């Protein structure tokens, strides 16, 4: 028996599984698009996709009007054709396959939902970004912390405490920027506590995170019901950051109103995404951070201070989460409500995993979560006959599917969650 050929056969079998598996998935999706949306679309109706926002500065472009049924049928055929192609020839990139599959399905869904009605696509994009902001900031907090090997599931608590700190300090100082600064520092402080517990006392990292969440919910609710909801309502009224359109960029159609007519928190989020990405992958500090997260002992033997590296990254992550907390109060509604983060910190963790512990990846995953969130609001307005609860579940289910690794693996840093002992 020729062993090299045998090896090749075994390797080829893995690829064959991808080819056939995704081929079938694509064919089934094509069929589903046809059955679910195609058959339920009336002939002759058009779907109108709004491409402008009222009151935006962008150059006005015409709205997109497409024949609903024809488009859905076309999408079904394209996807089925792609499936057949995949079965016979095979595309290696799982990312592209999943992307094409999801894109076609969502587009067909939108066309179906908007048939005979008007649906503002730019508004949708804008609200996706707004809703993605706290998720992305939570995810970036996770990325910074976990790249250095410290799991932080206390992000929810950190955001909650910073949100409250932001609104109180902004109200006291009558200055939103003071609130922003205080939120960032508060986030760093709470994260520093987490770091201290897990590094100095080697407390289980998940336990410490859980404790911070419980403490965060309790403390903020306590302060809320003892002060903010009673004698000191004036401390819970800060106002919000104004929208600052960026000159020129805001004039670009679609992208302009969606991205460049936002408030400072959203701009800062974009900046933080880029900066953390550059730091992690192109600077000495990032190289050291990743080494500490992968193989702390190796870093230690080269004179890198593992503990200090972890402290700094966890605290930096906490400051990012603090910014995320500020978004909830002074960035969005101008006051603090009990438990107002509503699980965004946990969804941020899912976005971090989905984004494979990579800042840019985490940002785009957050956008997907933000999109699902705003989609369900839009669909309620369109009175689509699907309970919004199911759309709201979608991101969680997608996260669980991602974690199984069937659509591309995400690999955590090797030493993630492991306390370092000299």
């Amino acid at each position, binding site marked *: 028996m020729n062993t090299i050929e045998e090896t090749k056969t075994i390797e080829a079998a893995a690829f064959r599984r991808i080819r056939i598996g995704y081929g079938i998935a694509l064919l089934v999706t094509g069929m589903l698009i046809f059955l679910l949306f195609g058959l339920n679309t009336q002939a002759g109706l058009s779907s109108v996709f709004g491409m402008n926002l009222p009151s935006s500065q962008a150059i006005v472009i015409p709205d997109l009007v497409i024949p609903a049924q024809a488009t859905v049928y076309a999408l079904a055929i394209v996807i089925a054709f792609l499936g057949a192609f995949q079965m016979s020839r095979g595309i290696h990139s799982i990312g592209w396959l999943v992307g094409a599959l999801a894109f076609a399905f969502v587009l067909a869904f939108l066309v179906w939902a908007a048939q005979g009605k008007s649906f503002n696509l730019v508004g949708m994009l804008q609200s996706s970004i707004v809703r993605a902001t706290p998720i992305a900031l939570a995810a970036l907090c996770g990325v910074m912390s976990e790249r250095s090997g410290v*799991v932080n*599931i206390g992000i929810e608590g950190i955001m909650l405490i910073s949100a409250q700190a932001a609104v109180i300090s902004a109200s006291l100082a009558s200055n939103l920027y003071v609130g922003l600064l205080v939120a960032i520092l508060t986030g760093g402080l709470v994260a520093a506590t987490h770091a201290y*517990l897990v590094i100095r*006392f*080697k*407390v*289980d*990292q*998940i*336990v*410490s995170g*859980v*404790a*911070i*969440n*419980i*403490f*965060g*919910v*309790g*403390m903020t*609710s*306590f*302060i*809320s*019901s*003892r*002060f903010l909801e009673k*004698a000191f309502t004036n401390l819970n009224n800060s106002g919000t950051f104004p929208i600052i359109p960026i000159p020129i960029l805001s004039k670009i159609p679609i992208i302009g109103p969606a991205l460049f007519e936002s408030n400072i928190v959203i701009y800062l989020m974009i900046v933080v995404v880029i900066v953390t990405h550059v730091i992690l992958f192109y600077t000495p500090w990032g190289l050291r951070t990743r080494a500490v997260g992968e193989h702390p002992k190796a870093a230690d033997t080269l004179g890198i201070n593992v503990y200090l590296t972890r402290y700094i990254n966890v605290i930096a992550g906490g400051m990012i989460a603090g910014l995320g907390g500020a978004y909830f109060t002074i960035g969005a509604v101008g006051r603090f409500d009990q438990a107002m983060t509503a*699980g965004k910190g*946990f969804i941020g*963790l*899912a976005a971090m*995993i989905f984004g494979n512990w990579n800042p840019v990846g985490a940002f785009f995953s957050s956008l997907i979560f933000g999109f699902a969130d705003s989609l369900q609001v839009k669909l309620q307005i369109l009175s689509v006959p699907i*309970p919004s*609860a*199911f759309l*709201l*579940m979608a991101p*969680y*289910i997608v*996260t*669980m599917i991602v*974690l*199984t*690794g*069937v659509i591309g693996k995400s*690999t*955590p840093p090797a*030493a*993630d*969650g*492991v*306390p370092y002992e000299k």
Partner: protein
Amino acid sequence: MSEKNQQQPAKKGWLRQAREAALVPALAVFTGLLIGAIVIVVSDADVIAAYGNFFSNPLHAIGLTFSTVATAYGALFIGSFGSFDRLVEGLGIYFSTGETRQLLRAIYPLTESLVSSTPYILTGLSVAIGFRAGLFNIGAEGQFFIGALCSAYVGYSISGLPAFIHLPLALLAGAAGGAVWGAIPGYLKARFGAHEVVNTIMMNWIAFRLSDWLLTGPMQASGFRPVTPNVAISAELPRFFSDPIRLNWGFILSLAIAGLVYWLLFKTTIGFELRSVGNNPDGAKYAGMSITRNIVLVMTLAGALAGLAGTVQVLGVDRWVGQGFSAGYGFDSIALALLGKSHPLGVVLAALLFGFLRSGAARMQSMADIPIDIISVIQGLVIIFVAAPAIIRRIYRLKEKAADEESTVLTRGWGR
């Protein structure tokens, strides 16, 4: 020097062992309460004002500090145990006239505390059994909710069955619902290595969204409130006393289940396997145990326990399920399991403590105007102190222990 590691832990009496095991948790609770008292004091405007005049009237400031704490914790105590005077009075009336109303009133706070402990015992066991097998079940909250919904459904949708069939059926339905909710992340962990922490959290959110839909749609009772109909009387867990007192057989059931879990964990081959998998999955696999089966099994059991917790709450106490029904049980149960060192007896004691705190805090809120959320603050602190015994040991200048006896690392990152 080299003889030092030859110490003999095996010869200690069980009493001493128990005392040593309980020392750090007890001090952790004490410290948590102490810090809670500080939070109460510094958030009290009168006390702060008194300290503003500290130098002119120091006694007033100090006195006010103590009286504030005493009022708050006094209310907490009476709220959870009841007042002794009332008990004496109630007993007097009972013996002189045979009238029980006063007596029942006197024991009402105590029984309410036991009522609030009941779901804690079961959710605490749910997390503890997971810890024993090396799994972190953050999903008790969702499992609790799903269990409650399933048992409520069986409870209200079926009528005409005798209680001895209907009640066990409703209990089983609740346990089964929770078991499914736990088994899904268990299976994903065993089959794909997907981390149970994230998946159980996701399952929580799915449970909340699902319940939003169920309670406003298919399972909604007539009327506008998003709640289920009341369960049939034949599905109710019988109560021990007449009406205001809600203490029911659910409490006894949860104690019995704690005993069963103890037996399962420490006296059977099933428990031996679970603990082996938890302590060293590679070793367990080497020894011929099935990791997959044990992970699914333990998550199913954990889910069933949490589901049963929701069930006894519905069938014994509330009789219907509404939104926010499971608020906080999931995270509290983690604190319980840690505080009880994942031992069933410890969990029961910790659950009683939390039940008394929660039930007393309601009175503290109404009498002393201290928001009930102070209990969450105390819980968060207690978790940290229990998980970092070194802090407690330092505060109280206790002797350091050998490192291997106190490993608090329960999970290994997101480990795939």
